[in-house]
């Protein structure tokens, strides 16, 4: 689990000592920006999202996700207001001050419910390292107002005992899996089953979100571009296309030519004596 701090619903801005620190990951193109996505996982609560007092997202609906934002690295004060609020003044629904966004980080900030059903803002660091050819990375995050769950793929438990607001990552062969979410240790299906497309060379992040009253759902975020090339291309076992040396007939002709020339030279030398 990445460094995460969850904020309670207390009205008004909660200053968070030290802020939220996202772990920087290397190998991103720009040295001065970070990649941040925002997912809305609080049921039935459209919001406006403000960053440093400026409106970043207008009328953000539950179950939607922003495309990745390239943000200048730095410190951000984030605040969520009801979508019908006129501006970013007054008391926010939720806030997080001094969220540190280091250069090169790739993160998703999730507005969601805690296990107890309180709204919270949780930043997750997205794993974006290279994935072996043919494989896919899948990350499962529990951000629903629900106790611990198991995640099953094709009926088999693949993530076991995941609780809010935690995550688990797996690297699996790329392809489509039929997944569902059950209450931990039971066969009681909470979400699904649903077909999930686990694209090769990409990270598919699956969020379990919602509440008992509003219903539980899956949200999916995909981060591509972490693919690796195959280690090579094989291609032949007979040697029929071998071009390492002179073919036998050509070599034989050359040898015969040398012999013929030598014989002629020998006769020339003898007769001229």
């Amino acid at each position: 689990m990445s460094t995460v701090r969850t904020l309670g619903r207390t009205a008004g801005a909660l200053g968070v000592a030290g802020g939220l620190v996202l772990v920087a990951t290397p190998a991103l193109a720009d040295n001065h920006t970070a990649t941040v996505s925002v997912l809305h996982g609080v049921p039935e609560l459209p919001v406006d999202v403000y960053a440093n007092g400026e409106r970043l997202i207008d009328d953000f609906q539950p179950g939607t996700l922003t495309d990745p934002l390239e943000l200048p690295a730095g410190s951000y004060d984030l605040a969520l207001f009801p979508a019908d609020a006129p501006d970013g003044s007054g008391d926010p629904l939720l806030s997080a001050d001094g969220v540190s966004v280091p250069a090169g980080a790739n993160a998703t900030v999730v507005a969601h419910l805690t296990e107890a059903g309180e709204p919270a803002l949780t930043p997750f660091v997205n794993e974006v390292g290279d994935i072996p050819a043919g494989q896919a990375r899948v990350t499962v995050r529990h951000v629903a107002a629900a106790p611990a769950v198991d995640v099953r793929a094709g009926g088999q438990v693949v993530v076991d005992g995941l609780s809010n607001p935690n995550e688990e990552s797996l690297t699996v062969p790329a392809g489509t899996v039929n997944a569902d979410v059950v209450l931990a240790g039971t066969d009681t299906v909470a979400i699904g089953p649903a077909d999930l497309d686990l694209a090769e060379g990409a990270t598919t992040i699956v969020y379990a979100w919602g509440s008992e009253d509003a219903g539980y759902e899956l949200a999916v975020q995909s981060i591509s571009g972490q693919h690796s090339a195959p280690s090579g291309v094989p291609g032949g076992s007979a040697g029929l296309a071998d071009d390492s040396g002179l073919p036998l007939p050509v070599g034989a002709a050359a040898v015969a030519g040398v012999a013929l020339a030598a014989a002629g030279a020998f006769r020339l030398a003898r007769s001229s004596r």
Partner: protein
Amino acid sequence: MRPAAASVVLGLALAVGAPTAWALSRPDAAAGPPVDQVLERPADPTTAPPASTLPEVSVRDAAPTVAPEIAPPARLEVPGLGVTAPVDPMGIAGDGQMALPEDVDRVGWYRFGPEPGAAGNSVIAGHVDDREQGPGALFPLRTAEPGEEIAVTDAAGGTTRWRVVSREVVEKDVLPLDEIFRRDGPPRLVVITCGGPFLPEFRSYRDNVVVVAEPVGGTTP
């Protein structure tokens, strides 16, 4: 005396001429500009430094979706070389290399990369030969010349047309795999088989024959 002199001349001509003629008649190891130069990524347009204000935000539904089906390539044709081969979508073999069809009369399309005509390099590869099956569909690939036309027909009947810009024999050890399997940039078709010296102790060839083709202008892939 005369016949002796004639046999010297004839003999020398044969000794020098046979290998020379052979060397001249065999295909060059490369034709066109080098493969890694052709595959080189075009320079990124210089991007403006990030503005200090917040970016525009686009938002979308996060509900799970299933990737749209694409029609995979089904047939590869190089009329000038007499090549016609069925194409199978292939992934990764157990050893981490690109998987190829066992049947040397068939070729494989790397299904994790772009389909022909999409952005990036679509890679089609096949065995040059097999100890039991003999020469493979791509056996003539090492004689492909720049300008040679290639057609790829997909399972839905759509065709993309290509023109060879480069052919090169590259040692497998230094094959620019990341460039060859690139998934962004202009659409290209890369056709690969084996070639170069055969290494009997490994039952394999030392090199790969790599042909790079670009879309024929005017066709919409």
